[in-house]
């Protein structure tokens, strides 16, 4: 039952150093994004100039290069969007024409003009380093009390932000979303700041209400799901901003500040990304809800009792359900669905920040009396 004080203080030191490294990573990300935005703007200007001289080329050189490399990598059966290539049809040795038409876009083109993004690499390296420190901080915190490190608000925040960064890096392994890092690291740093400044609690054993393996299951799934919702919120906000810019540009208006937005994918691509993140998160949230209900049955004898926390978890689920339905409804997709996704995130924050502190209920972790 005792607390290992040296581990607890080590945890605090690790969390602080992680914050410092996150801050550096955030700086690097911002610099990279700004540079990327500049480069794209310059390239677009060039393009417009050449457009004035020549008829519009529909396929850029990089795409043709991609066609060749794809052909080489995939053997003879692969072409690339809209390109025509010849290749041997094998046995007879005769060439034939391969035609490939694809409506699905290739990976978001971004600003990949081949120039290396050194600063972005530094940012990723720093993020990984910060996450290692962060995770070490979470682990030592847990070890100091010999339990899972999510027994109070401070620990939720510290562990939750670690999961957000972890999920971001996991997405990064699959596709280049380094443009997103600024919009992930900033809220993470903000939450960590809040956690250490406002929510900090000394490491201590769990109150009896939380002594259950359901704490591990229920809360860890809630973390993953929330992390995905956080990322989806970032991409949704960017989507709305991008949509405005696209509309302005289409109307021939002068675009103001925010050149870095040029480096980001189109509004349509951002929308798709948000959808995919939410689609993964939504069943996880449903599982959080059910696991919470099972735990409630074990702890309080009622699997559903409209406790404020249950209510808000339910509200979040319903709002994201509405989002998914909206995307399938005419007139509700795109921007209006995006507002629902933002509403869902706001509810998530209410559930996290407001309900825990201001609405008394069974989730207030004051023990039982």
């Amino acid at each position: 039952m005792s607390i290992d004080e040296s581990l607890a203080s080590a945890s605090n030191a690790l969390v602080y150093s992680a914050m410092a490294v996150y801050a550096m990573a955030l700086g690097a990300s911002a610099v990279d994004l700004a540079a990327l935005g500049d480069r794209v703007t310059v390239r677009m200007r060039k393009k417009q100039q050449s457009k004035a001289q020549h008829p519009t080329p529909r396929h850029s050189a990089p795409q043709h290069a991609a066609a060749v490399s794809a052909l080489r990598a995939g053997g003879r059966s692969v072409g690339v969007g809209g390109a025509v290539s010849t290749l041997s049809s094998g046995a007879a040795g005769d060439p034939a024409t391969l035609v490939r038409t694809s409506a699905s876009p290739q990976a978001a083109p971004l600003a990949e003009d081949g120039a290396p993004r050194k600063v972005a690499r530094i940012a990723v390296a720093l993020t990984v380093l910060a996450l290692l420190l962060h995770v070490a901080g979470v682990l030592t915190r847990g070890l100091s009390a010999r339990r899972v490190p999510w027994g109070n608000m401070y620990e939720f925040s510290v562990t939750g932000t670690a999961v957000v960064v972890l999920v971001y890096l996991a997405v990064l392994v699959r596709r280049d979303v380094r443009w997103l890092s600024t919009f992930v690291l900033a809220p993470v740093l903000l939450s960590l700041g809040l956690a250490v400044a406002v929510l900090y609690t000394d490491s201590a054993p769990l109150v009896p209400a939380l002594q259950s393996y359901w704490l591990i299951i229920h809360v860890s799934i809630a973390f993953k799901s929330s992390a995905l919702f956080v990322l989806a919120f970032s991409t949704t906000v960017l989507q709305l901003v991008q949509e405005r810019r696209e509309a302005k540009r289409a109307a021939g208006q002068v675009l103001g500040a925010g050149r870095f937005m040029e480096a980001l994918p189109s509004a349509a691509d951002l929308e798709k990304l948000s959808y995919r993140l939410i689609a993964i998160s939504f069943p996880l949230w449903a599982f959080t809800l059910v696991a919470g209900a099972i735990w409630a049955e074990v702890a309080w004898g009622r699997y559903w009792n409209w406790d404020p926390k249950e209510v808000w978890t339910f509200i979040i689920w319903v709002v994201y359900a509405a989002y998914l339905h909206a995307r399938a409804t005419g007139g509700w997709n795109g921007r209006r669905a995006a507002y629902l996704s933002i509403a869902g995130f706001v509810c998530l924050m209410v559930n996290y920040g407001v309900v825990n502190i201001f609405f008394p209920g069974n989730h207030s972790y004051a023990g039982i009396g």
Partner: protein
Amino acid sequence: MTSVHERHESVPSPPPGLSRPKGLGLLGWLRWSWRQLTSMRTALLLLMLLAVLAVPGSYFPQRRVDQSVVVRYIQDNPRSAPWLDRLYLFDVYNSPWFSAVYLLLFISLVGCVLPRTRVHLANLRQPPPRTPARLAHLPEHRAIEVHASPQDVLDAARAVLGERRYRAASFTDRRSVSLAGQKGDLRESGNLLFHLALVGVVVAVGVGGLWGYRAQVVTTVGEGYVNSTASYDTWDPGTLVDPDALPPFSFVLDQMSVVFEDDPANAQYGTPRDFRAEVTVIDAPGGQPRTEAIRVNEPLRAGGASVYLAGNGYAPVISVRDGNGTLVYDQPTVFFVRDDMYTSTGVVKVPDAATGQVGLQGLFLPTANVDPVQGPISTYPDLGQPELYLTAFTGDLGLDRGAPQNAYELDTSRMRQLNGSDGTPLRIRLALGETVQLPEGLGTVTFDSVDRFAGFTVRHDPARGAALAFSLLAITGLTVSLFVPRRRVWVRASAAAPGAPATAVRAGQVAAEPRERTLLEVGALARSEDHGLGGEADAVFAAVLARLFPPAQASDPNEQDEQDEPGEQNEPSTSSTQSGSDQIPPSGRTLTGRTLTGHALTSPDPMNPRSRSRHEHR
């Protein structure tokens, strides 16, 4: 979910507000209303409404969560509370308006899902739809000419679609043979399962409410408990519960142990660390007793019911002698906990005193301290300096009038408060073992010892398991409906137009015996959110080619170059591709893929003029 309401698109329902049934009569109106109710738009609005209406219940105290908090709220807000109550804001989740929304939502859901289930079941038995005339108009399209007969191509395609778990059907028309494949019907099945399972969850919750019961009981250490309505302190049965048929288990509370944070330097000083009730259970009269421990997250399961440790506190043993010295009261008396430090309140009712009925009420403090502002409070929840602070009443306790009375409250309406020798209300302060004399010869009060009590919640919910099973089914269905792609793939083999330039270009090469030339086309269509459709089309295309031309000759071109270095058969094409791509500038000649493909298929000469020119370059 994306596909949830596809059906609404197939049912030709007019958008609301645009067309209104005119002169359709009652039936027409009903049909129109039903269509509106089951439309996606309505479901969406109801969903959002449900979310919004659920909010006030988290702000205002709810009777079903804690009755006493509601009572206190009404006392504190005498002006607004009656209005809030009239609007059901203390019973949000039983209120007519909340019920109306979720009932409408579920009617809408059922009205949507049942017809869809019928359609889906019918669809499962139907072959995939006929191959479209122009595959090039599909979102994904691949085409290549091969030296193989259309039948060989079709056979290869059939094997490939089978391997990839497509339901396939072949079609023949004037110019071509084709195969239609459909996959991912599971997505719709999952979607329907999800929605039907949600209905199951709601039904299970309803069944649990009708046939389940919930009761609370307070037991002091050493006391027994038998599961019957007579033993409960509160009893909250569902409408259809038979109170005489409760499972006949019983238990005795042997020990109630508690552990608190005892390090005064810790910020969490006094926070509970462990609660544990040791009980001896007998499942049925005459059964074998077994000992169990009930902890906060470890309920006792007995006789189909569950017993939860819901609370604990102190039951000071108080004895009262009347003015004649007769022992008229001697028992552990439950004092309910009011704060985290176990400042507790309770009452003692002594009806049998010959010298006049006596009522005592006041505080029990496990670790007593007198705060200059708050008065006597407890500063630590465990027994440090246990003390009783009581006031005394005499008169009519009201127990003889037969009306049910709360055992834990003193009705002082017919009683008179006792005063001390100085004329102010008597304040009794008793430390452990102390005795105090009551004025007016009413007798003595002694604080003998301290016992503990445990509060248990007994709960029976026959549909608990069903609710869980339906929830898990719903999540399974949901996951399937979100991640299984629903696709159609068509493979067509048609005779290539004669005199195609490809052979002509290769005239210089070793001419194999003239073989049939066939145009192989693959088209793919997504019927749901599908990010992998292009990859799937590529994979089907590649697999068909790999079957037609076995992989020995069809491996990676780079490898091939190394393997049959002298045989130039493959090399030129590879290099030509590369040079072609590199050399052809992105000029105005470039067409979009779509037109190019359309061109290749619709022109009598399937070969594109541009590709011919590229061949001729060589």
